[in-house]
């Protein structure tokens, strides 16, 4: 059976990931207190992306899934990025 090979996450990994996530949340809040102008949004999004990578890779197990599923997840976010990005061909140049 396939799920015999299934990877089981250890409590330790999970706790480390949680600690990392909480730490990053703290950083997000802290950084937002500093006025970086336009950079604030970018930094906040970069941090959020990092956090979500942790969630996706570990909590959601993507790290241990096959290549195809990784590709699908990538495509999904790529399409979303395209939808947002291409809308800006209009609104940014209007």
């Amino acid at each position, binding site marked *: *059976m*396939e*799920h015999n090979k*299934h990877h*089981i*996450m*250890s*409590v330790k990994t*999970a*706790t480390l*990931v*949680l600690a990392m*996530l*909480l730490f990053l*949340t703290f950083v*997000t*809040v802290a950084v*937002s207190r500093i*006025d*970086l*102008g*336009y950079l*604030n*949004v970018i930094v*906040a*999004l970069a*941090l*959020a992306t990092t*956090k*979500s990578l942790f*969630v*996706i890779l*570990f*909590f*959601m197990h993507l790290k241990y899934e096959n290549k195809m*599923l990784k590709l*699908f*997840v990538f495509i*999904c*976010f790529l*399409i*979303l990025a395209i*939808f*947002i990005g291409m*809308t*800006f061909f209009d*609104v*940014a140049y209007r």
Partner: protein
Amino acid sequence: MSNVHKDYQGAKLGMWLFLFTEVLLFGGMFVLYAVYLSRYPAEYHSAGKELNAFIGGLNTVVLLISSYFVALAISFLQRGEQKKAIRYTYLTLFMAVLFLVNKAFEWSAKFSHGIYPDSPHLRELPQGESVFYGLYFLMTGLHGLHVIIGGGVMAFVIYKMKKNEVNSTDFVMLENAGLYWHLVDLIWIFLFPLFYLVI
């Protein structure tokens, strides 16, 4: 029923595909968020300051911990520690309720300040702020709805685990519920800075 043999990989693939649709459902709102942010940066800023970053931050922590709990619940179930798995799923459910309680406090505070969709007060504010609050209510509202659904799913899985229909050999239902829950968390990870901390 012509039950085709249980396909673990297939069930998970199906769940992931479903999560993609959720990502894009919120994605439509993120398109709007991005466009209006580029149009009304100042108004976003001043409206965002009015939101309670403390409750927002607290809720972030609540959701992260709840995510951690389901992740553990799945590990325990896979190892055959059914009791522990149930206990951790309960904890997740509890966190979901906590999140909603916080949210309710936050929203009712806003309502009492006359801030709700189409309120007379909003109409007096600069247009960008009204747009910001519109997005805030819709996106966090839709997210809240997902928390409620996620909570319901958790409760259902607890029931199934108690009946031992979900167990260490057939755990995909808990795993899928967990995936759903992580997605809810994931979306909040973006909503939090975008609404509560925007410059």
